[in-house]
């Protein structure tokens, strides 16, 4: 069973941001090959659902993932946290073996 989940605070923020942005069908998560440690996350608003997208719905938010990315992020939880003045989204990805110091890119 493949899955992507959102924490409640992440879902709340995503819904807020989409509402303020005024358009969008959901959130697109994925990976790209780049960065200092192999792979990098993709976190974008989605305006369309592509034909081969997998759609996960959690706390009322649609998360779209392309089939190629899914193996890298399957079982992942997206969280929204605050660190000092900064706040943003965090990927809790069980597939990651090691990441670069900052965690922005990773290896499976």
């Amino acid at each position, binding site marked *: 069973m493949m899955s992507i989940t959102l924490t409640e605070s992440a879902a709340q923020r995503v819904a807020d941001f989409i509402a303020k942005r005024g358009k969008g069908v959901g959130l697109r998560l994925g990976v*790209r090959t780049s960065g200092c440690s192999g792979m990098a996350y993709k976190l*974008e608003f989605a305006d369309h659902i592509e034909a081969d997208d997998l759609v996960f719905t959690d706390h009322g938010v649609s998360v779209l993932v392309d089939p190629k990315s899914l193996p890298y992020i399957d079982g992942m939880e997206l969280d929204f946290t605050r660190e000092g*003045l900064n706040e*943003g*989204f965090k990927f809790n990805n069980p597939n990651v073996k090691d990441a670069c110091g*900052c965690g922005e890119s990773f290896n499976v």
Partner: protein
Amino acid sequence: MALLQISEPGLSTAPHQHRLAVGIDLGTTNSLVASVRNGVAMVLNDADGRALLPSVVRYQVNAAPVVGYAAQHMQSRDPFNTIVSAKRFMGRALADIADAASYPYHFADAPSMVQWRTAAGVKNAVEVSAEILSVLRTRAELTLGGVLMGAVITVPAYFDDAQRQATKDAAQLAGIHVLRLLNEPTAAAIAYGLDNAAEGVYAVYDLGGGTFDISVLRLSHGVFEVLSTNGDSALGGDDFDQRLFCWILEQARFPDLTPEDNRLLLTHARAAKEALTEYPEVSITAVLASGLTIDMVLTAEKFNELTAALVNKTLQPVRKALRDARLSIEDICGVVMVGGATRMPCIQAAVASLFGQPPLTNLDPDKVVALGAAMQANVLAGNRQDEEDWLLLDVTPLSLGIETMGGLVEKIIPRNTTLPVARAQEFTTHKDGQTAMSIHVLQGERELVTDCRSLARFELRGIPPMVAGAARIRVSFQVDADGLLSVAAQEMQSGVQAAVTVKPTYGLGDEDIAKMLQAGNTFAREDMAARALQEVRVDAGRLIDATQTALEEDGTNLLSSDDYANILAAMQALGEVLLGTDHLAIKAATEKLNQATTEFAARRMDTHVRQALAGQNLDEISSKFG
């Protein structure tokens, strides 16, 4: 791991390459920084959750300067070292500051820009502003979790080249890359999403703490253009507090108040004004140093009556700005409110009744400029798709031109021309064999050089010697999107050129700009007469020069003694009226000398052609001219 933000579709950035860009509203009283995060523009708060950073810097001995609220609190205790309203001094010389005496500072004598003597040494407005920008930069980098790639910084639409350059210098000093300087009213219009709206003309009414600005913008084909600006650099929310404070004093009829009492009552006046935005009446109670108490009630109605004159004072510049843009009230599609003072219901009502429509007030008027700047920064940083891109146009606040013979100003770019702009005009030499030309760049509305402001001087050298009027010198003016000017001059035949980027000598006040604009109208008639006089003088001088040269060369061999005497007499007559100021007399005498020399000129032409052709056979001639 690093915290991520949601990007627009297809615009996820590579790790460590986030294009973090912010918008900064560098205000006279308060400054703010904002950024687009997760697709939404938001003001970035400090660690205590406060959005505003008071634009106040306090310098200390052997310690870093203190910026913001902490500095503001020390303002009355350490007035010499606590610099407020530095923006008013940006790019200004001490001589430009009309009310310099009313500030508590130890001003230092400096040729270009005002300087303060502080505990940490001599500082100027650029350095003070850099301290403020530096704090905002640190706040932004902590909040966004990375190094800024750049910022859009807003400036008043009427800021001249010197003030814009000073703002850029301050950013550079603070280690901020300036993506673009953006006019404050344009930023406000962007924040309201007017760029997505239908085409039309919008007014931006900006009443801050101490300044009032009105701007008229036109949006067409997704492009913003500032049509006109006006305002009052000495009118703001503080004047409403002051008016109320005076009323309290009149009502209470207390003798001799201590300075502390004054400050206390002023604070109460301000609080009462703010409370009246929500309640129909407020009570003002205070205990003075003497133990006497003040207890009075102020109704909104009374407040409106007290401040009606101030409200009306803002409407006059509005009408002027419309007139400048050649528009009427009916042409305005919408009105944007900027500045904390626009929260006052009496202001909103006056604006609504003048424009015949309710103004836009749903965004926080303190934040709207910073939000718009952030949205623009986001576009310039490449975090949005091209199709949604805006191009922003601003205008030149005053006309730009060069000095021509006789101390006249030839305008090359008229005032209110939309930016960016490039214009060129051809000029020529005034004297035979002239090999250099001095280009004097000026800014202002008047006709005479002495009445305009000098921006730069440079020389074009290496012009090949030619007779007067034969050289073609192309002078081109270019003003970039930030409003900065570069001037180039090129002699078209030889290609020699010279150029200057106007890194302006600082020194022109808002009041001066207003005065210069007004003077341009008031003195229109005098200027016209002065220009007419200078023009005929230059013409006459040129003719006398040419006649003298011709007489020396050919006078004796081509002229009868009668003709010679006639020309000499006409020349002397012209020389005499030239000393006077009657431009019609000079014109008439010039015409006479012209007539007296027509025959002589024709004869000289014949002789010179004959000499040139003499001794050459027909083949040579046809090969030369064929």
